[in-house]
């Protein structure tokens, strides 16, 4: 027999075995599909948090400005044991003051650089009332550096970075809300009472944990993008500045003069020569020994993500998956052991161990495969409940290709491994077990 016909033979035997107890097989299949749906939901949420579908250039770099140790060290010192302080500790080390941000932005050495400030602005579309939304004031290079793709239009020109030209890029959700027909490019919106022209609309939601400003806890999507040069004319107040010492006044100018941290800067240094030249530039701007320049990989190692509630639920989902595999394994084992005399007959009639092994394994996979494939579909009611009950951001959880793949393939792989034990155990049934019949 060829291996293909042998496979067909084992599949036929496994199907017959399942058809002997169709009700039980259906219940088991439904149980596995429900378990897979929970896994698929958690996997989809974790994937969009991690931003796995965003490919970043390894040549991205960031500068940490070293600051004297003072009372603010309480954030860093307490981060390891407190879930609330950990994000502040990372932000305190990775964000810059307004003056530092300006100094870094004025360097002409990097091949690309982006400076970002999040701030709330009031937006009004062609229809509907005004709404407060979070804007990111940044450079045109930002979109290329962080792999932001456009549904329509594109980024503004580099010359618009200086501001005053009235251009805006809308985030995915804002674009969909203000221009449901997808015809936003070229249309006008009002921002803080000023007229802006939409030059681009992004094609997708940003990752929950945006790589350009990690851990914006509870933060909404960057709803729109404005040239950095418009930050001052619009009088935007930075979102959640981390104060280090009290500003010398109450107004915005005092805040911008202060050492409060609210600017995020990234640079692209594609060659070792760029890195060396940038180090020299930083020595001149910040002073030797007053900074640490890290590549993206070094940055990720230096700032591991703190424990999140999401990671806890993802772990629980893994346990659900393992539980499902145990249920499947127990079902196959119980079924096989209660029919051990029949297996003994097969063995006595010459069936090799491999045949029993293959038949049991295939039977397990016949149960697991449809359940795994339907898991992402079964997750839809739960995802619907999640989107309506847990609206902590303005980006609903939606099915993605990667989410569906991970939601289906991982349970399938887990079932393939988990079914090995009952298949192996039953393949060891001795031919003399048939004597136990009757």
């Amino acid at each position: 027999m060829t291996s293909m016909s042998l496979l067909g033979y084992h599949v036929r035997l496994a199907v017959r075995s399942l058809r002997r107890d169709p009700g039980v097989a259906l219940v088991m299949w439904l149980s596995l599909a429900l378990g897979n749906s929970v896994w698929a939901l958690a996997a989809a949420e974790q994937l969009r948090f991690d931003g796995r579908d965003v490919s970043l250039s390894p040549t991205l770099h960031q500068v940490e400005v070293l600051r004297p140790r003072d009372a603010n060290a309480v954030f860093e010192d307490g981060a390891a044991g407190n879930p609330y302080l950990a994000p502040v500790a990372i932000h305190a080390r990775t964000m810059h003051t307004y003056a530092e941000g300006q100094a870094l932005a004025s360097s002409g050495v990097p091949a690309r650089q982006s400076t970002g400030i999040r701030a709330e602005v009031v937006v009004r579309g062609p229809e509907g009332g005004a709404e407060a939304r979070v804007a990111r004031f940044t450079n045109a290079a930002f979109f290329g550096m962080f792999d932001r793709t456009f549904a329509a239009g594109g980024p503004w020109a580099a010359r618009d970075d200086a501001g005053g030209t009235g251009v805006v890029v809308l985030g995915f959700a804002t674009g969909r809300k203000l221009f449901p027909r997808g015809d936003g490019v070229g249309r006008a919106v009002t921002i803080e009472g000023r007229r802006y022209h939409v030059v681009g609309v992004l094609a997708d939601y940003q990752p929950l944990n945006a790589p350009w400003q990690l851990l914006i806890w509870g933060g909404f999507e960057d709803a729109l993008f404005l040239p950095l040069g418009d930050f001052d004319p619009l009088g935007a107040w930075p979102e959640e500045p981390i104060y280090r010492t009290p500003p010398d006044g109450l107004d915005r100018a005092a805040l911008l003069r202060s050492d409060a941290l609210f600017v995020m800067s990234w640079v692209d240094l594609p060659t070792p020569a760029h890195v060396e030249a940038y180090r020299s530039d930083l020595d001149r701007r910040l002073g030797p020994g007053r900074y640490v320049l890290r590549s993206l990989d070094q940055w990720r190692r230096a700032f591991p993500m703190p424990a999140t509630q999401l990671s806890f639920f993802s772990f629980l989902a893994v346990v659900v998956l393992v539980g499902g595999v145990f249920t499947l394994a127990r079902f196959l084992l119980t079924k096989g052991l209660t029919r051990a005399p029949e297996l003994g007959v097969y063995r006595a009639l010459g069936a090799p161990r491999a045949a029993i092994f293959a038949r049991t394994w295939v039977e397990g996979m016949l149960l697991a495969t449809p359940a795994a494939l339907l898991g992402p579909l079964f997750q839809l009611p739960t995802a619907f409940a999640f989107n309506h009950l847990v609206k902590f951001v303005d980006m609903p959880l939606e099915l993605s290709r990667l989410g569906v793949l991970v939601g289906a393939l991982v349970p399938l792989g887990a079932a393939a491994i988990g079914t090995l034990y009952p298949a192996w155990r039953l393949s060891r049934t001795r031919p003399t077990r048939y004597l136990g019949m009757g």
Partner: protein
Amino acid sequence: MSAWSEVGPIWRSVRRHRAFALLVVEVALGFFIIGNLIMTCRWYASRAMPSSGHREVDVVEVVSRGPAEPTDVSTARHRAELAALAAIPGVRRAVAVSSSELDDRWDVPEIFWTDAGTPAGPSACEGVARSPAGVVVGWTVAADDGFADALDLRLVEGAQAQRPVFITRCLRDALFGGAPALGRTLHSNHAPDARITGVVEDVRVRAPFLIQPHVAAIYPQLPSDPRVGHVFLRTEPGRAEAVRDAVASALPDATAPDHIVSARVVAGAETLLSGVARGTAVLLVYVGALLGLLAILGNFAVAAFLVGERQRIIGVRRALGASRWDVLRYLLIENLLPTQLGNLCGLVVVLATLPAARLRFAGIRFDIIDTLATAFLLSLGGVVAKLVPALRATRIPPSVVTRSL
């Protein structure tokens, strides 16, 4: 024969079964999952609507947001709005604040310390952390004079809450170990040094998921977004809804195209984050029910198979004089024994992983009620899953033993 006398023989029989270990592991995993879901669900529910600590009835929160203007213009606008709101019939007092307890944007806390250094002993306020250098993490608010009166804050120290700064009781206890704070200097990273002139009973930010939301200092002024104005209105008793409805017409800019005005009655108002906490708790109940259902289905499938294939054994027991009740009891005890062992193993795993949970859910606890509830639910699920096949088994007649295959 009593149920207890059967436990020993059933236990010896069950533990020889090759799928026994798998069932125990499966129940242990179930205990881990359901136990954690109950624990986290309770944690989220407890954060869904935390009390602010002040008298919330007859208080209306008004937020007015206009476009960017020169500072003097925006200051004049806020003053005019405050006067207009104070003039609404039924308003007893209007005070401007920099932030309100209903705000959703409270992500970055501030720090406080004093010249006194670290007081001896632990922080006198339970659960409030203090660094070895005596630095305490908390929150700052700027508020007009009359803030304490408008919200009916209860003074713990001081004759009345005066300028420049008053603090909550927990901040005092954390900073000074419970010693009097009046006249001491408060340092912060957000506001200039100030002399403490009053201590009020704790008030807290109503947004869940914040560190130490009841540790706060109330300053007269702080740097804050001049485009946004927050006002608290204390109304005549029972007039809050009417005042809220009158806010839009009282503010001249309320209908301007780029102006946003909102008014809420504080009592019972849900913030975005408290909605998230409540929604998450509901979702966890839903997921728990779903997982419970799948556990029952999985158990049912195995139990149905097991009983169906053991007709002869059950028939023998029936032929030897076992009643239907004896058969039912046997099958249920057979399921409950490994379930309880699995519960025990699951409890050990939950307790072992509790520190990891605490890293993610501040102050979370797995108490005896959670333990009993989880064990009960899993046992009930096991019984429910086994009940239908077991009841079917009780109908197996003794004559089945005489049949050959």
